[in-house]
């Protein structure tokens, strides 16, 4: 059984806005969501990189206590975008709880905010304090906390996939959700990812010399994907969710079809856990096109992973060049909001979806002078009004995991 899969609803909380209109405005106006790193009374003052892709606007949460009690900050993000997607979808409540809808949702490592509190108690060496670790602390902090808080809130009884592969977490969520529907295991999948504000992640990348440190006084000027002055990634926070449905069922119920998921591929470099690998990435891009049954020339837009690290951007440009040549426009959306970690795949998918619908391509923010080693591809350096028939969203993670997702205009 092989069925067509379409996206029928999407929602994102990002450093450049919450919801479609906010985000489109930021993309059109070239607004950056990178701000100064917040103080956390822990590591923040000692980290070289003092910038962060920040969600600093109020979010109107309206969750009952029965749901709130097992949610850390990351699950608030996840449940909010899931709620918005289900509301927008118009799905029948009976379908939502029928077992034919599943959830594929993940985060980098659950809720680090809650985990820190647990370890603080452990390290106190105070026997009486052990009981201060609440019964719900594990449920709030565990790796699959986002996925199961969503199932609980909406009574979803289908399969649960909780990928946690750092930067490919939510692109895998969409990909594995797509395969679940395509091969008939589920009729619909709610897919996405989320990550909360966390300086631990910044500290880790900072120690690996992978973070941007040269623009602490001008946060909006970094990260700078493909730019000659790029100096590393900027960690960020956010969440996104999409609803995938089997095409015929979506059409019959009169759902708004936003785009078709044409293909997905995921592979591993089979070696080094950090260094980007040209052969591995190139193969992923090719596999996703083969899966979609499309030629490279049919793809008008590539959403690059492009974190603005020295090596990563060059290897990715080489891979894009090898597979697509210099025809499709290439944009790197992290220029607007930094690297939102587990949510970057789904957020970049949603932004690409919006641009496909609106018929424009936002330029890579902060790309002022293309590094000549990345110059063999067609960079979007200014906003281009152009139809986008199909787009590829690519993401790569520590651990050598690569993904590529191909979207096509709604059938």
């Amino acid at each position, binding site marked *: 059984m092989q069925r067509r899969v379409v996206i029928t609803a999407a929602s994102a909380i990002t450093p450049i806005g919450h919801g479609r209109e906010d985000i489109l405005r930021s993309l059109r106006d070239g607004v950056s969501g990178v701000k100064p790193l917040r103080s956390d009374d822990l590591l923040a003052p000692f980290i070289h990189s003092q910038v962060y892709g920040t969600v600093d606007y109020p979010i109107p949460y309206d969750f009952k*206590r*029965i749901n709130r*009690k*097992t949610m850390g900050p990351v699950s608030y993000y996840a449940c909010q975008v899931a709620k918005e997607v289900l509301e927008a979808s118009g799905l029948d409540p009976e379908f939502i709880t029928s077992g034919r809808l599943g959830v594929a949702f993940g985060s980098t490592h659950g809720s680090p905010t809650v985990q820190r509190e647990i370890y603080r108690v452990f390290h106190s060496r105070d026997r*009486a304090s052990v*009981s*201060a670790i*609440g*019964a*719900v602390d594990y*449920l709030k902090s565990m790796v699959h906390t986002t996925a199961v808080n969503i199932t609980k809130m909406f009574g979803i009884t289908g399969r649960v996939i909780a990928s946690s592969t750092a930067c490919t977490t939510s692109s895998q969520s969409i990909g594995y959700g797509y395969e679940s529907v395509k091969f008939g295991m589920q009729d619909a999948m709610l897919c996405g990812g989320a990550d909360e504000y966390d300086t631990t992640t910044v500290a880790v990348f900072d120690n690996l010399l992978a973070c941007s440190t040269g623009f602490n006084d001008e946060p909006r000027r970094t990260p700078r994907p493909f730019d000659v002055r790029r100096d590393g990634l900027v960690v960020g926070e956010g969440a996104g969710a999409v609803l995938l449905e089997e095409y015929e069922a979506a059409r019959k119920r009169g759902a708004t079809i936003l785009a078709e998921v044409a293909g997905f591929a995921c592979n591993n470099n089979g070696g080094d856990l950090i260094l980007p690998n040209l052969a591995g990435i190139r193969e992923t891009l090719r596999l996703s096109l083969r899966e979609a049954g499309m030629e490279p020339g049919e793809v008008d837009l590539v959403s690059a992973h492009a974190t603005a690290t020295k090596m990563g951007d060059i290897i990715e440009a080489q891979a894009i060049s090898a597979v697509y040549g210099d025809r499709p426009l290439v944009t790197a959306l992290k220029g607007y909001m930094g690297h939102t970690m587990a949510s970057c795949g789904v957020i970049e998918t949603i932004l690409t979806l919006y641009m496909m619908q609106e018929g424009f391509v936002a330029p890579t923010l902060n790309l002022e002078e293309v590094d000549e080693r990345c110059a063999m591809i067609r960079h979007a350096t200014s906003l281009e009004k152009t139809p986008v028939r199909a787009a590829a969203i690519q993401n790569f993670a520590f651990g050598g995991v690569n993904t590529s997702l191909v979207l096509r205009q709604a059938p």
Partner: protein
Amino acid sequence: MTREAIEAEIRKIFLQEFEIEDPAMDVDLREAYQFDSIDAIELLVEIERFLGSELTMEEKKRAMDIRTFRQICTYVEQLAQIRRAAGNLPIGDLCKEGS
């Protein structure tokens, strides 16, 4: 510590910690208020705070059979009596004696 004082304290905990206002005495808490096993564990922590002493594992396990608000009050009353008999007065009594 009187039964009334215990009941008032448990009602306060239910309102503040579980957003359950004036629970009925004899209904099944799970069915009526979706009070689940997680809430039960959280309630034990609150009871420990109220009594000013840790519960033993046996005491905690015994709580797992509780289904109603009245049973909770009886459970706490018994715990308070045990501690009083052992010379460890619950905080409520200490406050009363100090005032």
